[in-house]
């Protein structure tokens, strides 16, 4: 019974279209609430870091975007498995629409990481493990987007993208740990620049709030794009014609 309800409300294109319309205002409210709290608390109320001064506040953008970049790719991989195993169209649409959002978050993480690095390390870029991993994640996203953009047939595009996403998620831990290991190998046993002491709660709560805010933002943009895709893919069906008229 539960499965049937989920199927009707979320998994069918028509159900998702209706449900997302209902959910979007709620998501927007949550997003605004978390974003305002995180921004105001993080930028104005939280005290300056004793080591990095005011510059540390960029973590309120950098960490959420890096976190989201990883989360979106994992979401894409799960959607890819659902596409291949259960042939769910909505999972394929989820996967395709997430890709460019994830790429932008990855790019944002790189740029903010770079901006953060300039006052901290003196250079715009440093080949440390985390930044390099995020750069490789950007390449994975861009490769996925490139593959999807060249295939015209929708079902072919979905399945090919799904295979690439699954290959990516299998390789991602291997790539991540090999890059960490590569970094320790070539930098020697110096203290890692990113070795953070545990973060104080007064700085942590706005950070968590910003992560949530970014997540709601991702869902809003994702749902909007998915609704567009559903219209594009299903425009010949009866319910679309009824909805649009």
């Amino acid at each position: 019974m539960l499965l049937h309800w989920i199927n009707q409300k979320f998994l069918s294109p028509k159900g998702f279209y209706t449900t997302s319309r209902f959910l979007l205002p709620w998501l927007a409210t949550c997003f605004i609430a978390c974003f305002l709290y995180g921004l105001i608390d993080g930028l104005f109320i939280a005290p300056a870091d004793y080591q990095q001064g005011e510059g540390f506040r960029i973590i309120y953008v950098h960490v959420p975007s890096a976190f989201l970049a990883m989360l979106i790719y994992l979401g894409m991989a799960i959607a890819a498995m659902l596409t291949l195993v259960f042939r769910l169209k909505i999972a394929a649409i989820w996967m395709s629409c997430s890709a460019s959002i994830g790429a932008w978050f990855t790019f944002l993480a790189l740029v903010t990481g770079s901006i953060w690095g300039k006052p901290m390390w003196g250079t715009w870029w440093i080949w440390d493990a985390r930044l390099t991993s995020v750069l490789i994640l950007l390449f994975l996203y861009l490769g996925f987007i490139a593959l999807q953009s060249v295939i015209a047939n929708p079902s072919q595009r979905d399945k090919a993208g799904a295979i690439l996403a699954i290959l990516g998620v299998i390789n991602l831990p291997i790539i991540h740990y090999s890059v960490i290991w590569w970094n320790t190998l070539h930098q020697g046993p110096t203290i890692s620049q990113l070795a953070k002491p545990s973060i104080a709660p007064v700085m942590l709560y706005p950070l968590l709030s910003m992560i949530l805010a970014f997540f709601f933002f991702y869902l809003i943009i994702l749902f909007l794009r998915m609704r567009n895709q559903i219209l594009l893919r299903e425009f010949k069906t009866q319910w679309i014609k009824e909805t649009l008229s």
Partner: protein
Amino acid sequence: MTLTVTNLSFERQFITVFSQLNFTLAPGELLQIRGENGSGKSTLLRILAGFIDAPPSTIQWNYQCITDCLAEYQQQLHYIGHQNGIKHHLTVYENILFYSALGNASTTDYSSILTKMGIAKRLHTPAHDLSAGQLRRLSLARLVLSERPLWILDEPLSALDQSGQFILGNLLNEHLAAKGMAIVATHHDLPLALSSLKTLTLERA
């Protein structure tokens, strides 16, 4: 061994290629698919061969949906499409050996098969030196090399001269007499001895 097709529809890029096709094929029967260019004959044959995914429960082999048993189903059929499936840089003999390895066929009597197809004298010619008609005969040779009940042929008479068409007619007759089945897309009249010929005409969308 029956092939049952129920309410098969297919659309590509929002254009309906064909809709609501129904037919049954029993041993000893041949289905001829007619239609103009662009009416979806090749697409239909590729769907029947399992290369393109069909909607579930539309195609059944021995009353079992082919999506459930795709690998076993595909090992029961031969498909010859517009491309010949011949390696151009191998000789005729090597092509036979390669195909036999792939299709688990025995190659002990390949010379009689090639004589039947009329290309026995070209045994050690590289395939890129053969004419289009000879290539077509070589590709048809694999119908005899490994025995499979269902033949799916897309315009097999193209590039064949009169004697080639005669040879194909004989092959089909023998196959149907031995309780085999065939689906052939062609606008020619097939030189068949049997009267158990079904026709399906596809309309252009």
